[in-house]
């Protein structure tokens, strides 16, 4: 069984109070903020690793991110993934979810993957749109389930070996929905749906021997107007900071005049 896990390096959510937005480009200024694997994506990877713990499976990790994120992708290999691909090129920068999901799809085509399961975190901690996994499924023409809280092997009698199907629990507003699903399928996994394993020292050592390939723009069958900022229909609007400053105002007069003045101020403000 082949499992593909899509991950996104994001600024450490615990340091969001240090994040700034560039007023010109309207992009996040990430300098000085450590990069981590998106927490929900770690849950997706853990879900894949748990399948691998009990089943013959290989796990490929795919990400679109700058080169400096390679260490974070290697962390996925240290956790137990078998190989990883990083789509990295200056032309991929500034992509919205549409361009990102399309580039990921082209990456999968280029690598020649035909995964039985594609797992991704339900949403990223920075963008939090939850678009990319379902868009990717649409590009690939696959069924998809979002808000997945657990993945279990369907153990009903009569399952032919190799024709594994899965019982998927999806978190709903009121309770859970239980699906029975056959591969290939894309599942976007809820944050905190499991406890990702801690990287072991031996895992770190082994990760250095595993394949981590960086694929550039030229390796993918894409044109420059379909990737990155140029290929993104979403454009950031104006940025404004609300004026929250306070000023004092002295009200004088008789108690009745002061009360009337207060009422007047209140009426004007609502």
């Amino acid at each position, binding site marked *: 069984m082949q499992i593909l896990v899509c991950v996104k390096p994001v600024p450490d959510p615990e340091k969001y109070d240090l994040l700034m937005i560039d007023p010109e480009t309207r992009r996040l200024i990430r300098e000085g903020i450590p990069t981590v694997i998106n927490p929900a994506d770690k849950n997706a990877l853990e879900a894949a690793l748990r399948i691998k713990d009990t089943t013959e499976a290989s796990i490929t990790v795919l990400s679109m991110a700058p080169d400096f994120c390679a*260490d974070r992708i*290697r*962390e996925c290999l*240290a956790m137990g993934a078998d190989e990883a691909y990083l789509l990295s090129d200056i032309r991929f920068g500034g992509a919205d979810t549409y361009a990102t999901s399309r580039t990921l799809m082209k990456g999968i085509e280029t690598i020649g993957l035909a995964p039985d399961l594609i797992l991704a975190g339900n949403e990223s901690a920075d963008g939090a749109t939850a678009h990319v996994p379902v868009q990717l499924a649409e590009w690939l023409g696959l069924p998809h389930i979002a808000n997945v809280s657990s993945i279990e092997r369907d153990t009903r009698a009569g399952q032919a070996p190799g024709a594994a199907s899965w019982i998927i629990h999806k978190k709903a507003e009121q309770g859970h929905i239980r699906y029975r699903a056959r591969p290939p399928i894309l599942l976007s996994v809820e944050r905190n749906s499991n406890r990702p394993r*801690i*990287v*072991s*020292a*031996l*895992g*770190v*050592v082994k*990760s250095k021997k595993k394949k981590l390939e960086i694929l550039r723009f030229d390796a993918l069958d894409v044109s420059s107007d379909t990737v990155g900022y140029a290929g993104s229909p979403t454009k950031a609007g104006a940025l404004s900071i609300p004026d929250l400053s306070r000023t004092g105002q002295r009200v004088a007069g008789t108690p009745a005049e002061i009360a009337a003045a207060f009422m007047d101020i209140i009426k004007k403000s609502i």
Partner: protein
Amino acid sequence: MLREAFADFVNQEVAPNAAKWDSEDHCPVELFPKMGELGILGVFVPEEYGGVGLGHTERVIALEEIARHSAGLAMFVFTHQLGVAALLEFGNEAQKKKYLPSLCSGEKITGLGTTEPGGGSDLLGAATTAEAKDGGWMIRGRKCFITNSHTADYAMITAKSGTDEKGRNLLSVFLIEKGAEGFNPGRKENKMGLRGSVTGELIMDHVFVAEDQVIGALGKGYGVASKVIGEVGRASMAAISVGILRGCLEESVRFSNKRIVYGKPISKLQAIQFHIAEIRLAYEAARLLLYRAAKRKDDGKSAVAECSLAKYYGTEAAASAAKRTIELMGAYGIVNEYPTGRFLRDALTSISSGGTSEIQKLIIAGDTLKQYAV
């Protein structure tokens, strides 16, 4: 990435429990298999014996991360690693294959016991004896202040196994398995610091050990013990002190940024900044001494003097830094809700563990008189 991995483990499993282990003096043996699985216990042991195949630098990184929150747990772990190092460096192939995998995995616990009521650093003055009998050795004696005394499955101890031509004691190292007839832990100490690691007595009342449980060459136990304690043990104590120093630094910065006095955080006050600068300097210096010593060990060079430098400076500096941190925090510093009191108790306890500061100075001076003779 390795340090991050160790820190992840510590943040999840150690930091939330450190204060409880300290107040209850609980030794978290239940964490050992997890630490084995993560490769912490045998990080410096080759893969063929169940380890990770890295070195002592990585080993002290793990200890620093653990000691940042629980110096007591770091003490427990490193004492286990003392026994592992003795087996790895001096054991024969059969002993390595027999014992190391379960020690690396955390299934079994070990330690190294040399100190006796007569003193710790006077190894050759040991009163514990080993007499040849029935193809093995009969051991009699008592060890004290032994870490992992009550938790170890395999205790490695030094005993006098003969004398040389000048009548001087010859020591050997023996591995005694838990449950051996006549072998029992004795008194368990109620320590001021490094709580969470068990320290106590080992009593050997006519304990028989087989010939194949001698670790290293017969009569060469002094070399085994002094090398393992001098390098692995003292580097570990230095790592514990670096962890405590980092704890002091982080607590000082966190508290002084939050504590508002005269309308501003006390971190804006020069008197507080002086404290923070001193702690930072001590942390950086102790860290550099530690990692230089560990690197020498990994390079296969003698690191006894370097480890003494790191241990002496680090433990004394950690005690000063803990006191500074308490002073910086005012009345909050003495409240046990904060870890500062634990830092001070752990740092003070570290000074005498693995050789007092005076012993370190003797080693440093001896090395200096040779190295710098002109």
